[in-house]
């Protein structure tokens, strides 16, 4: 039995559809129940839906054998897991954004609001820019509007929210996509089962 941590939301649904197509369907997932764990004994798989940023925690601690998670989460939290496959779906970009017309003054410490503290720190370190991080947990776009920060570092999918708030992308520095990760110990003991999933998954994705 392989347990899979899926991110709640659009990406999780999309990934489950792929699982179902490659022979890991689960009837319980199609019902409207309030169940938290969905198991298909005949296909030897169980799924649970968790907050996207928690997927890597479930996998790293062995509560799930494998999981689907965005590269942003892997770079931010650096969990000790195997990153076995780039699914090439759930694509977006990690960007620096600011108010339309923002001009950076390199002599002054840049105030950066973000959810992704490590990613932001590493990026600005790589370009030798002094920054002050303001950690937020949501509505990041609000920060430059209220002058809480000069810029934000956040994921941009379509850019609509930015545009509606008179913000522009100043720099795209990291392409993001969904990855299939595995717990290191689970992978030792369930190598064949996990590899079978990976092979079928890549075949399906390349169709």
């Amino acid at each position, binding site marked *: 039995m392989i347990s899979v941590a899926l991110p709640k939301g659009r990406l999780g649904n999309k990934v489950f559809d792929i699982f179902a197509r490659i022979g890991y369907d689960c009837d319980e997932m199609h019902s409207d129940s309030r169940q938290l764990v969905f198991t298909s004994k005949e296909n030897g798989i169980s799924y649970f839906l968790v907050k996207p940023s928690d997927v890597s925690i479930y996998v790293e601690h*062995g509560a799930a054998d494998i999981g689907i998670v965005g590269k942003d989460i892997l770079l931010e939290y650096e969990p000790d897991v*195997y990153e076995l496959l780039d699914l090439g779906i759930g694509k977006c970009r990690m960007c620096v954004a600011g108010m339309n017309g923002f001009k950076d003054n390199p002599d002054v410490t840049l105030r950066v609001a973000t959810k992704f503290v490590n990613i932001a720190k590493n990026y600005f370190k790589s370009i030798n820019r002094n920054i002050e991080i303001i950690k937020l947990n949501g509505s990041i776009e609000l920060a430059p509007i209220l002058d809480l920060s000069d810029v934000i570092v956040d994921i941009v999918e379509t850019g609509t929210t930015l545009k509606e708030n008179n913000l522009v992308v100043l720099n795209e520095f990291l392409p993001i996509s969904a990855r299939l990760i595995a717990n*290191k110990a689970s992978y030792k*003991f369930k190598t064949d089962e996990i590899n079978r999933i990976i092979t079928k998954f890549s075949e399906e994705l390349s169709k």
Partner: protein
Amino acid sequence: MSGNFNFLYKDELLTLRLRELYESAGFKKFTMSKFESYDFYARNKDFLHGQRIITFSDLNGKLMALKPDVTLSIVKNADGTERQKLYYTENVYRESKDVHEFKEISQVGLEVLGEIDLYQTVEIIVLAIKSLLEIDSDAILEISHMGYIEGLLDCLTDDASLRAELHKLICGKNAHDIIKLANENSLPLNPVNTAVNLMITKNSNEEVINDAVASALNSRMQSAVNEICSIFNILESIGLAEHIKIDLSVTGDPNYYNGILMHGYVHGIPRDVLTGGRYDMLLTKMGKNCVNAMGFAIYFDALDRQLHKKLSDNLPVYIIYDDKSDIKTLLDLTEKLRNEGKVYNAVTELPKSVSNAKVYRINGNTVEEEEI
């Protein structure tokens, strides 16, 4: 080990069994001092992966550290004159990444300092496998070789930061990002393909070895795979090969490790419970005369949930006596229970919290037995 040890917790018994195993192989117990000079650890911070350590000033104002690592202490105390075989059971204090506070970690491990030949290497690996088998009969010891990865990286790049990035990706079995990084940095195709191939799981250890021999691109890789091959053949001949998984994509810190690497896994624990390997580079860094060093440690914090249980899960036994009970009858009963390996409590009244127990009541000189 003979005798009745039902009162022990599983982890306590495991420690005793491991001590017995190591002592029988000629290892001597090493006891480290509780406090050591901070300077020493600050100089070797990289070995502790930049972990924060507990420091305090002693009565002379000197900055001291509270037991952050046993290996460093053993190496520091090595005199380098003859081969030393040491084992330890110690608690170390390290920062816990998850909760951002210090944690006490119980470790059992062994180290060999001095010349290490093929026999010594195999002996350490065998002890690592036997240690794991004490915990789980289906345990797996993953074996790798730093020489293979380092040799491969030599063919790829000299750039230290790029090597570090490649190390990380190889360790995470992240083939897709290696290909991307290779394209961005125009790395040579042949070694990149070898790196990607390393991450593909093979059906057997023989296949891993054959593949590694065929893919060896320089003498460093060749000699690493030769060593792995010799070790595997010996382990196979003594019937331990089924507990071995050779995975040459596993790496360690190249500043310290230079040969065999080991990671041990047991069912039900989500991370490796045993780590170790050959670390000659640490000795060189510390200016020691010893030629080689190899060892491993078992981390009991990972095993705690599984092992911190009493060996016996029998019903608790209570003996209830009063003023009129015959003391000799009571003592005879306790002697009998002790010989049967039972753990008993002699009380005048059954504690209210007890809901499930075997109860003996001493009425005068008769014993009444019941289960509640």
